């Protein structure tokens, strides 16, 4: 099915099942520990061995020698695979740095060996016995601020240069010129990267934890020089991804190498320090923002310049993206710089770009409102735009940001209190708000539906559920489209033998995969209409019946002589991006307390009002947003990978050192979705919310801290060491 014009009325509009607060259909499996994650697939294949990885102990240089004799002789060890035994393996285009092979070390904890043994403990102990001799290169510079000055012309991208920013800024009546820093962050999903690999007759099967089944299949085929048809990937349950499991990682490569050499299936999980230093992270950014406005608060000039770290060939964290679209202003200059820093690979993490960009932009907007003496809500409303500012012929398909702001302000009881004006005993109280913008992309997505003689419907797609609720919203889509009750829908996800889907990433998963399943269901309905010699548009599917005027037939009857199978794929026409700009919006409001003595920060309440098209399931959507808000609190207050500038690695590489919020850090959270739909987005008129939820949150927290203390911290996270000396004396 080609989606090449905005949706009109269609069967999904009935909203009898879609849009309803259905609890997660996989919830019981998750909460009873019976959903088997990759490392726990004991059922998958007999005779599994354990592989334990060894990461490089240096950040840059070469492996000169590896003495594996002691490891190979250790109890239970079956085999040892080292990086010196092979050339660098062929690398998929989506990976920026190498996963395995050859003597060169390009980052700390790059995988250099896997020890395969009968038990996990034996493999781990033997991995520690490998003696590695390095030729270490200590000349590298890992400090982003230093590298910023060394960025070369080809790594500077000017996204927008309209009007004359410099003149307009020079003449502006009110100006802000400030620099913000956001730190490197790690996904630290609960389930580490883990895979079981098994070879049979030159075919490779991998049970893994992947957001993108087909990307993993293709990358494995490339890595091991196989036909993609010879690779099978399964990932039905995923313990979180946040962008960290988009691409093939070392766990699956090491498992496959170990399995090949051992001649038996091998499982590998990355230890937590390797999750952090071996895989990907969100890059650090240094963002320079300048805003000029009239005294009345109309933005006339806006400038956003971002630099972030990436290995050569990567894209870093382009934190400028939202600034192209979020606020009006005639004169605009937006520049992104890539600093080649040879830390581990920086890549996507939840809301790549916007999450970091809004941390800076939305604090800048708060600072600007303060300079103008305006309510920050009103300042944002005054600079709303319904068209893309740098290309006014392109309009937002739907943008109800102002409604988010007004509704949020009213619900929260926003009064725009003056800084340091509220206090309760030893606690300074602050209110803060921010806006949020996140794009609403869509990707091609396929699905297959199989109507069974017993009246059940099997849904197959390689779509993944990374904790987001894909199982549930896809089942709701199938139930809506076929008129079957939810308990007659059998969902099968995360398997490369199923039609290729969008996968989970970029907040496109929910909108795209439900659209793909919609297409398959439309195909099924057409087959049934043909059998009935009826017009598919006039058929009504409800309560297990197909109704054509006075005629009503049980749906199961169409499969009485064998299952009825329909498959299709949604593809999106370019009208979606050429004529329109599709995005999601939110307004965040936060109340916090800051201890006047110690600077300890305790949030009191949070509110998010979201504009994200049709909400397919308010329960799972809310879970996405409160998860994003929680991650946003982490960004605001504590999450930071500490870079050892001298040795080139992330020092706090475990969950004791990399702190994320605990329950006590998270206050009452309220989420409101504006009701409505966006026909330009998909046939189901839906967009994503999973990344919108984190976007802008940290800035609202930062603005609330400023409101409480009068102190502005432009370097995230806002830990008390950065402002304790700026608090009033006690």
């Amino acid at each position, binding site marked *: 099915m080609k989606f090449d014009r905005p949706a009109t009325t269609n069967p999904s509009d009935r909203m009898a099942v879609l849009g309803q607060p259905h609890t997660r259909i996989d919830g019981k499996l998750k909460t009873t520990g019976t959903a088997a994650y990759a490392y726990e697939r004991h059922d998958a294949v007999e005779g599994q061995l354990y592989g334990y990885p060894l990461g490089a102990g240096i950040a840059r240089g070469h492996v000169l020698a590896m003495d594996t004799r002691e490891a190979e002789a250790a109890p239970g060890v079956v085999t040892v695979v080292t990086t010196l035994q092979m050339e660098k393996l062929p690398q998929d285009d989506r990976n920026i740095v190498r996963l395995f092979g050859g003597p060169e070390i390009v980052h700390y904890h790059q995988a250099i060996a896997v020890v395969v043994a009968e038990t996990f403990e034996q493999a*781990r102990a033997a991995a520690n016995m490998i003696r590695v001799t390095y030729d270490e290169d200590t000349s590298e510079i890992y400090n982003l601020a230093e590298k910023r000055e060394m960025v070369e012309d080809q790594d500077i991208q000017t996204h927008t240069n309209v009007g004359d920013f410099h003149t307009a800024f020079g003449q502006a009546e009110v100006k802000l010129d400030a620099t913000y820093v956001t730190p490197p962050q790690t996904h630290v999903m609960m389930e580490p990267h883990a895979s079981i690999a098994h070879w049979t007759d030159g075919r490779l099967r991998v049970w893994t934890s992947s957001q993108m089944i087909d990307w993993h299949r293709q990358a494995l085929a490339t890595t091991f020089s196989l036909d993609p048809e010879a690779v099978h990937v399964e990932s039905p349950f995923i313990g979180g991804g946040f962008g960290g499991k988009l691409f093939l990682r070392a766990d699956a490569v090491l498992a496959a190498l170990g399995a090949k050499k051992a001649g038996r299936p091998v499982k590998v999980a990355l230890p937590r320090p390797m999750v952090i230093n071996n895989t990907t992270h969100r890059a650090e950014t240094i963002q320079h923002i300048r805003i000029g406005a009239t005294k009345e608060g109309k933005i006339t000039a806006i400038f956003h310049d971002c630099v972030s770290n990436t290995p050569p060939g990567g894209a870093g964290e382009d934190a400028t993206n939202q600034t192209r679209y979020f606020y009006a202003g005639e004169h605009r200059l937006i520049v992104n710089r890539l600093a080649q820093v040879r830390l581990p690979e920086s890549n996507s993490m939840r809301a790549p770009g916007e999450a970091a960009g809004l941390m800076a932009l939305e604090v800048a907007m708060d600072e600007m409102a303060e300079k103008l003496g305006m309510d920050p809500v009103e300042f944002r409303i005054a600079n709303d735009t319904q068209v893309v500012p740098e290309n006014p012929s392109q309009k937002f398909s739907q943008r109800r940001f102002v409604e988010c702001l007004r509704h949020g302000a009213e619900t929260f009881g926003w009064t725009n209190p003056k800084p340091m004006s509220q206090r309760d005993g030893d606690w300074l109280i602050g209110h803060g708000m921010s806006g949020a913008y996140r794009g609403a992309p869509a990707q091609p997505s396929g699905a297959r539906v199989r109507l069974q003689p017993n009246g059940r419907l099997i849904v197959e797609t390689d779509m993944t559920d990374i904790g987001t609720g894909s199982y549930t919203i896809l089942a709701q889509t199938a139930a809506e489209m076929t008129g079957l009750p939810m308990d007659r829908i059998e969902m099968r996800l995360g398997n490369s033998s199923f039609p290729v889907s969008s996968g989970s990433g970029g907040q496109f998963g929910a909108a795209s995969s439900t659209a793909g399943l919609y297409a398959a269901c439309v195909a099924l309905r057409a087959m049934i209409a043909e059998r009935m010699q009826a017009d598919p548009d006039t058929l009504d599917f409800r309560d297990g019946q197909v109704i054509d005027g006075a005629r009503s037939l049980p749906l199961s009857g169409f499969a009485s002589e064998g299952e009825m199978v329909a498959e299709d794929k949604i593809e999106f026409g370019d009208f979606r991006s050429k004529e329109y700009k599709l995005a999601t919006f939110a307004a965040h409001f936060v109340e916090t307390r800051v201890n006047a*003595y*110690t*600077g300890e920060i*305790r949030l009191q309440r949070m509110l998010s009002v979201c504009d994200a098209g049709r909400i397919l399931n308010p329960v799972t959507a809310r879970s996405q947003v409160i998860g994003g808000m929680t991650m946003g609190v982490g960004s605001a207050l*504590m999450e930071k990978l500490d870079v050892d500038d001298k040795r080139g690695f992330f020092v706090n590489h475990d969950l004791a*050192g990399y702190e994320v919020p605990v329950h006590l*850090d998270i206050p009452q959270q309220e989420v409101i979705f504006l009701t409505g739909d966006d026909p330009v987005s998909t046939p189901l008129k839906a967009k994503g919310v999973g990344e919108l939820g984190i976007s802008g949150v940290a800035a609202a927290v930062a603005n609330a801290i400023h409101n409480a203390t009068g102190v502005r911290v432009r370097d995230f996270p806002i830990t008390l*060491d950065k402002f304790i000396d700026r608090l009033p004396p*006690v």
Partner: protein
Amino acid sequence: MKPFTYERVSTAAAAAAAAAANPGAKFIAGGTNLLDLMKLEIEAPTHLIDVNATGLDKIEPTAEGGLRIGAMVRNTDLAADVRVRRDYPVLSRALLAGASGQLRNKATTSGNLLQRTRCPYFYDTNMPCNKRAPGSGCGAMDGISRQLAVIGGSDACIATHPGDMPVAMRVLDAVVETVDAAGKTRSIPMADFHTLPGDTPEVETVLKQGEFITAVTLPAPVGGRQIYHKVRDRASYAFALVSVAAIVQPDGTGRVAFGGLAHKPWRVEEAETEMPNGARAVTARALADADPTGDNAYKLSLAERTLALVLAEAKE
């Protein structure tokens, strides 16, 4: 983890004897720290002596009016003990500020005293660390030291003791009771129990090989307002940036010990004479010899301000 042998002993004497007979041995009780370190091969004992069944799990009154806390008393049980809550609330509060409920259920009184530093360079065996690998250097001093010691450190080491309970025990003038293989007992005041790093940061206490902790004794209650305030980067389940254990009497005199600042709970008795004069006067003396890094100088302000909060709270 390296292979090791294991035995379970049922008396303190047997524990000490087993350790004396086996120089590569370590005692294991709750295992909440040791097992992690063994998995990383930062600790590699060849023999483990399980001391959980030594019967040292009672809290008993002493003839002097204090309390004798058995070495195997779990953190959860100690924090909940009605006598501790009534007479030594600073200890109960310190315990509850530490770790998580699950960890406190396992962690023991003696094990907590022997908890090792959480310096990230100590935990990464690829990095230099004089405490883990004497003579290898210190990665933290020119690396990341935001959490580390501001006072009492040396050119070799700026690690901190991570515990909360020992800070409260220090301010309570607790005494550590031990026994050795010869049956000889020793009473070690908390002030002397932990050592500063000096040239031997691998040494953290005055215990000798084979010497086994049997109890911690608290002197008779001293009354006063007893407060433990722990400041950290999140609201719970994190190590202290700075913590303050204080006992403040109605006349404003009192005692104070700090956590998160040094290789041991930090208490300077002479500085306590300044307590009636306020936090700044106390910390000016208690932290006079501080030698912070650029990363952790904030701890000096934070210690003063946290003490100020505690003193204000004590007046309420």
